């Protein structure tokens, strides 16, 4: 880092920032004082959703009836914003592909840099060796780290280098993870969770991150790799698009229900709500997992020697 972050953190235009933020804050305060408060009657649109959830959709969750029913088109758009963001994260975090032919600038640059640094800038051979050793540690040295910390005795000095956590954490998470998974899936499948697939997907990500924390990336790598997650995510997005179009074809409007409604509080209540919700669970769960692991496993793609 070129700037020392701890000594004195640099700021930009403190006073101008304070004036602008204060002015916008003051405008927001004036607006907030005019907003409806806790004794205001419910807006007509909210009352419509409360009264319509049972007769229209046979669901006891008005929030679900709004998310996947009355405002389904909005959720459809939101799904694809999420998909675009996940694709963006994938694009930014993925490793550079090795190029060949005319596109070998990176290799040419590395070779040139090594020559320039030894020759003109007076980097000595020992410094070069140190830098290369450091690069080796950052890159390949990772695989020699122990997977489980159990072999090291408690209280060993130095940083802990194992990927996984101790047997206590692993055992705890092994107990909790299946319960969390079943609870999350149950709430989504029976339509009891407000928001359905969105909180369900967040629970799925939580379980996967707990597993990552407890057993380490190396054991989880095969399950969370993009080749597995991306088809599931796109299948969820495709199912949502198909549901929206099917509503238009069979029931005359986008996201309208075209399935028979089961009795309330069963897995078949809600018609397309449940299908939409489960598709959203697939899309959100895998999308957030892809985003999280894209960020967690980002490679170092700078050259070992600072070009400055």
């Amino acid at each position, binding site marked *: 880092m070129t*700037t020392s972050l701890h000594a004195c953190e640099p700021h930009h235009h403190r006073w*101008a920032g304070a004036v602008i933020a204060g002015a916008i804050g003051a405008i927001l305060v004036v607006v*907030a004082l005019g*907003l409806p408060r806790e*004794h205001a009657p419910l807006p007509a649109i909210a009352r419509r959703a*409360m*009264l319509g959830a049972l007769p229209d959709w046979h669901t006891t969750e008005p929030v679900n009836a709004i998310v996947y029913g009355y405002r389904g088109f909005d959720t459809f758009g939101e799904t694809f914003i999420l998909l675009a963001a996940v694709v963006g*994260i994938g694009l*930014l975090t993925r490793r550079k592909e090795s190029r060949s032919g005319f596109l070998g600038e990176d290799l040419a640059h590395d070779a040139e840099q090594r020559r320039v640094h030894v020759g003109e800038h007076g980097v000595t051979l020992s410094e070069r060796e140190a830098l290369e050793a450091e690069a080796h540690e950052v890159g390949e040295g990772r695989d020699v780290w122990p997977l489980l910390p159990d072999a090291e005795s408690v209280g060993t000095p130095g940083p802990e280098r194992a990927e996984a956590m101790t047997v206590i954490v692993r055992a705890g998470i092994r107990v909790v993870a299946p319960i969390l998974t079943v609870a999350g899936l149950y709430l989504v499948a029976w339509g009891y969770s407000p928001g359905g697939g969105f909180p369900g997907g967040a629970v799925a990500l939580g379980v996967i991150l707990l597993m990552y924390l407890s057993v380490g990336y190396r054991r989880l790598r095969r399950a969370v790799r993009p080749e597995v997650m991306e088809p599931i995510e796109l299948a969820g997005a495709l199912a949502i698009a198909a549901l929206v179009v099917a509503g238009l074809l069979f029931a005359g409007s986008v996201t309208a229900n075209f399935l028979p409604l089961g009795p309330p509080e069963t897995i078949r209540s809600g018609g397309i709500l449940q299908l939409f919700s489960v598709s959203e669970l697939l899309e959100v769960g895998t999308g957030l997992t892809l985003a999280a692991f894209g*960020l967690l496993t980002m490679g170092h793609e700078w050259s070992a020697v600072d070009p400055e």
Partner: protein
Amino acid sequence: MIVGNYLVAAGIFALGLYTVLTRRNIVKIVMGLSLMEASGYLLLLSMAYRARSTAPVLLDPPHGETTTQLAHGSVADPMLQNICLTAIVIGVAITGVFLAIVVRLVQHYRSVDADDIRALRG
């Protein structure tokens, strides 16, 4: 008094904006943007609140009310809860994109100072 929540939301928004405007550390700028998002969630959920209200769930309404009574009585606004849900998902996705860009910027410029990132300057 729910108006207190509104004022706190406005304050958090202004605080986030101040962070974005004055900090030079790009990680902290992203944190400021997240703070501005969070103020939106607080405002939406506070606006959904009604005095002595229950959750917008039709399963076993409290005090033996029917669902019709529930809809006309005090229940939290389900529409605003839906909009907050949407906002949270979009917020998470956007923060992820920001953080990915920040990591790439830091790797390229080897600095988290926004003033060092000026390769587009003529």
